C-alpha cells in the first residue's frame, strides 16, 4: 500500500567528475610528489640559513621569498608538508581505529552497550577539541607524538558516531534481515552484508577528517606544543612568521595558504565522496 513507484531507473549513469574534484586531486598529487621527492621542486635546503638574504620578498631566485634568518620559504613549505601531513594522518588513524572499534561495538550490540558507548562519545565531545588536546598535552608532555595522540583522541567521536548510526541502519536493513533465507550463518551475514555496507562510510569520513586533523595539528604547533623550531612544520612557520608580520607578509601567508589549500582539497574530495555514497547507500 505504498505510493506508485516510478518505473524509470533512478541512477546508474556515470557522470564526469566535477572540475573542483579534479583540481583538488591534482593538487594533492603534486603535494605527494613534493613530499616524496622535494628535490624535484626546490634546490634549497630548508634548514640552511643565508644571513645575507634575510626577509627577501618573493623574487626570481626565491620564489616565495626568505624568512627571518634567510631560509627559503618555498623549500620550508615543501619539506614542511611531510610533517604537517604525516602528523595529521597519524592522528586521523588514531581517531579512525578507536572510533571504528567503539562505533561498531555500539551499533551492533545490545541497547545497554550502545548507551554506554554513546556516553563515551558524549564525554569526548563535551570537551572542546582544542582544549582536550591541551589537556592531553599537559598530561603527556609536548612533542610530535603527543600532539598526534591528542588530536587523535579528540577526533574519536566523529568516526564513532557516524559508524554507529551507519551500523544501526544496516543492521535493520531488509537485505540483512532476509539473508537468512539463503542459509547463511550469522557470521557470514555479518561479513558479507553488514560489515562492507558499514565500512563504506569510512573513506568518506577519513578524507574529511584528515583536513581537520591537519588544522588541529598545525594549531597546536603554532602554540609551540608540537615540533620545535627549526623544524619546518607549517604551524611552527606561522608562529615564527607572526613575529615579523609587520614587515614581511610572505613567511606567514604561504605556509598558511599551504594549509588552507591542502585542507580544502581534502574537504572537496570528501564531500564529493559523501554525495556519491549517499546515492548508493
Amino acid at each position, binding site marked *: 500500500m505504498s505510493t506508485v513507484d516510478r518505473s524509470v531507473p533512478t541512477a546508474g549513469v556515470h557522470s564526469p567528475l566535477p572540475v573542483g574534484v579534479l583540481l583538488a586531486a591534482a593538487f594533492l598529487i603534486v603535494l605527494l610528489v613534493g613530499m616524496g621527492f622535494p628535490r624535484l621542486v626546490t634546490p634549497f635546503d630548508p634548514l640552511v640559513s643565508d644571513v645575507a638574504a634575510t626577509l627577501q620578498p618573493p623574487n626570481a631566485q626565491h620564489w616565495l621569498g626568505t624568512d627571518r634568518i634567510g631560509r627559503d620559504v618555498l623549500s620550508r613549505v615543501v619539506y614542511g608538508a611531510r610533517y604537517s601531513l604525516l602528523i595529521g594522518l597519524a592522528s586521523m588513524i588514531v581517531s579512525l581505529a578507536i572510533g571504528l572499534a567503539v562505533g561498531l561495538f555500539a551499533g551492533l550490540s545490545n541497547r545497554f552497550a550502545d548507551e554506554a558507548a554513546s556516553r563515551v562519545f558524549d564525554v569526548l565531545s563535551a*570537551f572542546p577539541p582544542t582544549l582536550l588536546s*591541551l589537556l592531553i598535552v*599537559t598530561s*603527556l608532555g609536548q612533542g610530535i607524538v603527543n600532539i598526534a595522540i591528542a588530536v587523535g583522541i579528540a577526533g574519536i567521536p566523529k568516526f564513532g558516531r557516524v559508524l554507529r548510526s551507519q551500523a544501526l541502519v544496516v543492521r535493520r536493513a531488509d537485505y540483512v534481515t532476509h539473508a537468512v533465507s539463503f542459509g547463511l550463518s550469522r557470521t557470514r551475514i555479518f561479513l558479507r552484508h553488514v560489515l562492507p555496507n558499514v565500512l563504506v562510510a569510512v573513506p568518506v569520513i577519513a578524507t574529511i577528517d584528515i583536513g581537520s586533523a591537519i588544522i588541529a595539528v598545525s*594549531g597546536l604547533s603554532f602554540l609551540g606544543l608540537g615540533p620545535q623550531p627549526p623544524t619546518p612544520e607549517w604551524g611552527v612557520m606561522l608562529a615564527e612568521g607572526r613575529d615579523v608580520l609587520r614587515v614581511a607578509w610572505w613567511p606567514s601567508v604561504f605556509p598558511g595558504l599551504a594549509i588552507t589549500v591542502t585542507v*580544502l582539497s581534502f574537504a572537496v574530495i570528501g564531500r564529493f565522496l559523501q554525495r556519491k555514497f549517499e546515492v548508493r547507500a
Partner: protein
Amino acid sequence: MRELRRKIATRLLTGLLVLWLAATVAFIAIHALPGRIEDVLAGDLSYPGLREAIAAQWGLNHSLQWQYGQFLLRLAHGDLGTSFVMQQPVLDVLRSQLAPTMQLAVSAGVLALGLAIVVATVTAGSESRWSGRIASFVEITFTSTPVFWLGMLLLVAFSFELRLFPVSGANGWRALVLPAVTLALPTTGVLSQVMRESIEAALSKPFVTTIRARGVSELVLRARHVLRHALLPVVTLGGWLIGSLLGGAVITEKMFGRPGIGSVTLTAVTSQDVPVVLAVVLLAAFVHVVMSTLLDIAYLFIDPRLRSQ
C-alpha cells in the same frame, strides 16, 4: 505528557552522567603518569625528602581513590583547586580573566549565527545555481582556513595596511573587531552550510507544495514554515558551537595578544600548571554539557514528532 516528562528527566540524567564522566576522564588524564606531578612541582630543585614533602603537602601520597573522592567533592563545591605556579585558588585566577574571553566568544558567536542565517536564507534554493555554488565554495574555504592564519591575513590587511584596527590588546570595541571576525568566520562556514542544506531539504518536501498551493508567497513560506525546519539541525549544533568558540578563543587570543582565559591556559600548559588547565577544561566541558542538555530538551518542544513515541 507523562512521556514528555520522562524524556526530559532522561536527558537531565544523561547530562549529569556525562558531566561526572568528563570530570573522571580529566582526573585520569592528569594522573595518567604517576610521579609527574611531583616532577612538575619540584621543578629544578632536587634534594632528599623534597618529593615526599611535596606529596604530603598536595595530598599526593594518599591512594588514588581518595584523591579522586576529594577531587569530586571539591568540584561539587565549586573549588577548582590551587594553581601550582601562582599558589592561588584557580577560581580567582580565572575569574579575573573571564571577561575579555566572554566578550570575544559571545560577539563571535552572535556574528557567526547572524551571518550564517542571512547567507543561508538568501542563497538556499535560489533561482540561479551559481549563488548556491559560490556560497558553498566560500563556506568550505572558510572551514578549511586555520583560524590563526586568517587572523594574520586580517591583521595585515586591516591593521597594518589600512590602520583601521589596533594590532593587539583589549582596549575598546575596536580591538574586539578583528579577533571576533577571525573567530567567527570558520564557524560561520559550518553553520551556513548546515542551514542551507536543511533549508533546501525542507524546500523539496511535499508539504511546501501544499503551502504554495494556498497562495502563500515565497517570503512568508520561508519565514514562517521553512525556517523552523532549517533551525532544527542548528539547535543540535549549539553545544558544538560553544566548544568551537571556546577552543578557538585560545588560539585567537594568542594570535592577537588579547588577555583572557586562553592566554592563562597556554601559560599553564607550557609551565605545566596542571590545576589551571584542568579547571579550564572542566569549565568548558560543563558549559558544553549544560548547553547541549538544554538544547536537547528544547528540541523536544520544537519538534512535536519527538514528543510521542
